[in-house]
């Protein structure tokens, strides 16, 4: 076992990000770590690479404890990583970035640089350069060597980061969501790259949200949720594991997420879906907007069946989902962009307005789907959002179906609501009834817990 994580606990300012997590990574394995947002995956990586210290517990690398070692010392031991959001040294060239990977394996210091006593430094520099080029060839972008790193397209930047990590010649490579922001072709190439790296004899520890990728190439999968490990095993086992299914809220390779769900939304209403994480709310929304296809049942929009219809076609009919992520909802953005017929696409690094595509696609929106618009925002901003939703309904005449953690706030402007639990509707009614319902109060109207990143 090349890496052993024993009972680690990690607190941040009183908030517990990881509770008693134990994990063993076999040498040469391709080991994936999956879990919903906030499960603690990146925190785990940060602990392994040394950016934070554990609050309790031990981490052993090759049977020796590495707690207390600084990140650069761990790098020297043979642990390298990439980051969830690409962290290249932007102004340096691609080649220089990759050459930095070798830093921990080389020795020329400042004085030697200046005095250049022997030819050793020049030799070392040449070797570093050649190695870096070879890694760039390995990941497939040798032609970009001299480009300034920040100018590369996103997917290639990720490749540079991987090449840089490989430049350290690591035994253990931690990859943090390498496929994020990649299109299907890029993802497939990445898949083969990761397998190639593993076949070279390197142990790969992989955090990923792309389930197809994970299921396809992993030997072992560990599942984290809310800071604890809830399952571990081979891909086929994980897919069938009920605890895992419950933790995730989307159909991952055959997992049943929602069942027997019937809802109705009338024109001009604000309807809210509330429920715990994993209840199926987001899945429902995405099934309506066309991102997911229902196994059974119908979705009727303005007298037309839209189940199984693709998102862009649905959008043309006036049914728009405002994307989740960082709680972005804009009265101005949505309004202005709706007027201009633009379509908003959000990715990890922010909002991009896909104007050209949008212009062609959209008719005047009539039904808005919103998935947790206030996620992660401070109370004063949440107030703004709720007001905005109200205005959208009143001034623009929109109908709104929204998923909200801040159920309390949402119910103040909603007409009706549905409560979901483990994929089913368990309660419905007008907002006042729901607000006064004790069970709902207890379960969903309290403050939701904060979640760490990753």
């Amino acid at each position, binding site marked *: 076992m090349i890496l052993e994580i024993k009972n680690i606990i990690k607190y941040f300012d009183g908030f517990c990000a990881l509770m008693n997590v134990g994990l063993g990574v076999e040498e040469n394995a391709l080991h994936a770590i999956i879990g919903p947002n906030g499960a603690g995956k990146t925190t785990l990586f940060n602990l392994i690479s040394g950016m934070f210290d554990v609050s309790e517990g031990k981490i052993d690398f090759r049977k020796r404890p590495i707690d207390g070692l600084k990140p650069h010392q761990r790098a020297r031991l043979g642990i390298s990583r990439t980051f969830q959001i690409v*962290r290249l040294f932007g102004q*340096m060239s691609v080649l220089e970035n990759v050459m930095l990977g070798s*830093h921990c394996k080389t020795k020329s210091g*400042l004085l030697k640089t*200046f005095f250049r006593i022997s030819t050793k430094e020049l030799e070392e520099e040449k070797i570093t350069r050649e190695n870096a080029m070879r890694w760039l060839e390995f990941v497939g972008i040798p032609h970009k060597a001299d480009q300034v790193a920040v100018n590369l397209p996103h997917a290639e930047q990720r490749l540079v980061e991987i090449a840089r990590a490989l430049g350290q010649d690591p035994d253990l490579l931690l990859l943090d969501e390498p496929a994020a922001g990649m299109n299907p072709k890029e993802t497939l190439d990445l898949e083969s790259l990761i397998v190639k790296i593993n076949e070279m004899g390197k142990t790969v520890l992989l955090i990923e949200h792309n389930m197809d990728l994970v299921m396809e190439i992993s030997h072992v999968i560990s599942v984290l949720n809310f800071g604890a490990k809830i399952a571990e095993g081979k891909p086929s086992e994980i897919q069938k594991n009920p605890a895992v299914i419950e933790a995730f809220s989307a159909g991952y390779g055959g997992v049943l997420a929602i069942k027997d769900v019937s809802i109705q939304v009338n024109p001009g209403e604000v309807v809210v879906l509330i429920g715990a994480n994993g209840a199926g709310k987001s899945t429902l929304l995405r099934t309506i907007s066309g991102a997911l296809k229902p196994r059974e049942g119908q979705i009727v929009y303005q007298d037309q069946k839209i189940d199984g219809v693709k998102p862009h076609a649905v959008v043309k009919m006036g049914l728009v989902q405002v994307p989740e992520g960082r709680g972005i909802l804009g009265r101005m953005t949505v309004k202005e962009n709706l007027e201009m017929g633009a379509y908003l696409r959000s990715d990890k690094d922010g909002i991009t307005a896909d104007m050209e595509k949008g212009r062609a696609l959209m008719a005047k929106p009539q039904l808005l789907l919103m998935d947790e618009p206030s996620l992660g925002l401070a109370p004063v901003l949440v107030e703004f959002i709720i007001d905005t939703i109200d205005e959208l309904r009143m001034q623009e005449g929109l109908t709104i179906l929204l998923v909200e953690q801040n159920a309390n706030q949402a119910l103040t402007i909603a007409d009706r609501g549905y409560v979901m639990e483990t994929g089913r509707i368990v309660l419905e009614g007008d907002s006042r009834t729901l607000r006064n319902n004790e069970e709902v109060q207890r379960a969903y109207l309290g403050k939701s817990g904060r979640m760490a990143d990753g």
Partner: protein
Amino acid sequence: MDYLISVISIAGINIIMALSFYLPFMTGQISLGQAGFMSIGAYASAVCTVKFGLPYVPAVLIGGLSAAIVGFILGIPALRIKGIYLLLLTLGFGEIVRVVFINIDYIGAAAGFPGIPYQEHTLLYAYGMILILIVFFNRLRKSRMGRAFQAVGSDENAAEVIGVNIIAVKLVAFSSGAFIAGMGGGIFAHYQEYIEPFMFDVMHAVEFIVFTIFGGIQIFWGPIFGAFVLTLVPEFLRFIQEWRMELYGALLIVMMIVRPQGIISLDSVKMVENGLQRLFGKKTAGGLSPGQTESK
């Protein structure tokens, strides 16, 4: 002619000071304390020549070393502090040095330290040192440590995870910057023949920053260019001289709005380098870049 020499000499000293700022700046450490280090170097070297009769070169070197030692000590708490806080810390340091020197009678206190032996070849020594610094920075640029410096300046935490010992890098950069500043102070003292604490105040520290920001932050030619131009131009345009500081201020603002990377950018230098390569058909110091063929 004498006048020209004196202006160019001052420009030389300013170049050295700008480079002393640039070195820690590469690692992301913005120091308003270089004037303070300059002051330490100036006084230390003056004491060596005046009170102990040492010759010029050792005195200046001792000035540099004294500053470097203080720089090392200051550099340790500076490790954990970034951005404006470091600016404040170094500002505070500079002020403390000034106040301390004002209160030490041995070196003349507020009345200043007169009688420093004049070094008539200051121009040579200053530009000799600049030449050495140019070689140093150029070699640094294409070396492992140079990349490490840049990485630390770009994203410290990522650099550490890659394997760079950021503590060592920052400390070395900071003390080396202090060393260079101290040497600059020594050269300055033996040119002016008289020094007093207020010559090394905050505004001067700011000037060195202005030189670099104006000249260009991406490569060491920037501070050289900036210091040279900003020293010379006010001398030759009299009306500017009076409004020099206000113009520096306006320059900072305008640069930030219009061209934050400074006048000399990495691209401009690369263009020049490529042009020179084609002209002379030789390798530049530091080896070929990938893709370039061995022979011409």
